[in-house]
């Protein structure tokens, strides 16, 4: 299990274990953490699993695919460097300890 900390917009923190190979979105869903909706279930089709990756971890993430970047551009208050669609980020050993912040709302 990889340790991930999800911070709700109101500041409440949830530190949970997410299986390797799962996605950041699935970690939130499977632990009942509010703030990530993921209506399409992880198909990169709806942009309702947007979150901000803590600046310290940005560099460790694989780059965005063009489709993710295109969808993010229209998310609610995206940040050019910190925003990701959490369904597109697979959890690996390198992300152990990662912190991410939920937006005020999804698109």
């Amino acid at each position, binding site marked *: 299990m990889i340790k991930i900390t999800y911070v709700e917009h109101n500041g409440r923190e949830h530190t949970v274990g997410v299986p390797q190979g799962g996605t950041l979105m699935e970690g939130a869903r499977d632990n*009942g953490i509010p703030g990530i909706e993921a209506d399409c*279930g992880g198909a*990169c089709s709806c942009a309702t699993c947007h979150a901000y990756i803590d600046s310290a971890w940005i560099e460790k993430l694989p780059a965005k695919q063009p*489709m993710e970047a295109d969808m993010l551009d*229209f998310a609610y208050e995206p940040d050019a460097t910190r925003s990701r669609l959490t369904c597109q980020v697979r959890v690996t050993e390198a992300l152990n300890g990662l912190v991410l912040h939920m937006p005020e709302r999804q698109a």
Partner: protein
Amino acid sequence: MAGIVIIGAGQAGASVAAKARVLGFSGQVTIIGDEPVAPYQRPPLSKGYLIGETNFERLLLRSPSFWSENGIDLKLGAPASAIDRFAKTVRCCDETVRYDQLVLATGSSPRRLPAQVGGQLGGVYTFRTVADANAMTAEFSPGRKLLIVGGGYIGLEAAALGAKLGLDVTLIEMAPRILQRVAAPATSDFFRALHAEHGVTILENIGLGRLIGEGRVSRALLSDGTELEVDFVIVGIGIAPRTQLASEAGLVIDNGVATDAFGRTSDPSIWAAGECASFRHGGSRIRLESVGHAIDHGELVARNIAGAAVRYKAQPWFWSDQYNAKLQIAGLNVGHDRFVVREGEGPSQSVWYYRGPQLLALDAMNDSRSYMVGKRIIETGQTILPEFVSDTSKDVKSLLSLATTITETFAA
């Protein structure tokens, strides 16, 4: 207090239950589902799941412990058999479950081929549940001959999976073109070309005569007299809302279980949500077959059970994945009188549907930016001049600032 009872453990039923808890409902919540598994996502079944790209656990809508932690009682593998509106009970196997508020979230069932044309033969499948997908997994081995009946999205997605695994795939569509019921010729053309590129044979204007075989299907006779050898068949000829329980209970049925703007049926203690429910939209009574609708409509019903009295405003969106192509649809193109195409870079384009000056919907193929822009324009009740849409010298994002309400368009 007997609480809320939900018949149907799909996306809509799960949404009602989860939202009721988010809203602070403290009474009993029970979901009755006829499949033996907890609520899961159906769309991936005809995409990655069938060919093993994802496993069932990852399709679950919630973690297995979510339901008990939230005091939601799941009665699974237990089809509801009758509703007694006067006693306010549901018959479920050998049990009688009492309700204060009942929600019908029974979804749809796939239309099947009649037995007279071979629909009962072995090796003939429809696609709806995880059990359906599991039953046909073993059929998907390279070189086998797959016939798909019906050129809608489910048939096209199944064709893409077949081609990806090296099957010999033929798809027949009775109408003059694939996707005729749901999309413009430009969208049909895009997908026809995509499938041709991957070696799928698409035959349009060709219906099924009948399937032939002894016990199991081995040949198909087509409407033009040709005969094909087949190893198995997938039938994707549409779905029908599951209204039997509602109809037997004497509820009004009109293209599905009829609901008002609040999601209530003709019985004030019974609601309906998702695919099984029909509601008024733009002058007609429609049903929507989509995940987005199942979630939104389910949540609306939960809010209205709590007394919110909010009216439903459908904001439909859909998607389909075939090979590496992604289709995203926003809005409903029903009743459109014209469409314009915006060409993208590479194998991408979007098709924008209008009725008069009003943008109704768009299909975006490998073009998420157009999808997001069009969706926003539609959802805010605005429109955009078709000549701006087709002008690719304009960045698609700039269309957002060019969008107007209809009155502004006429004033200009």
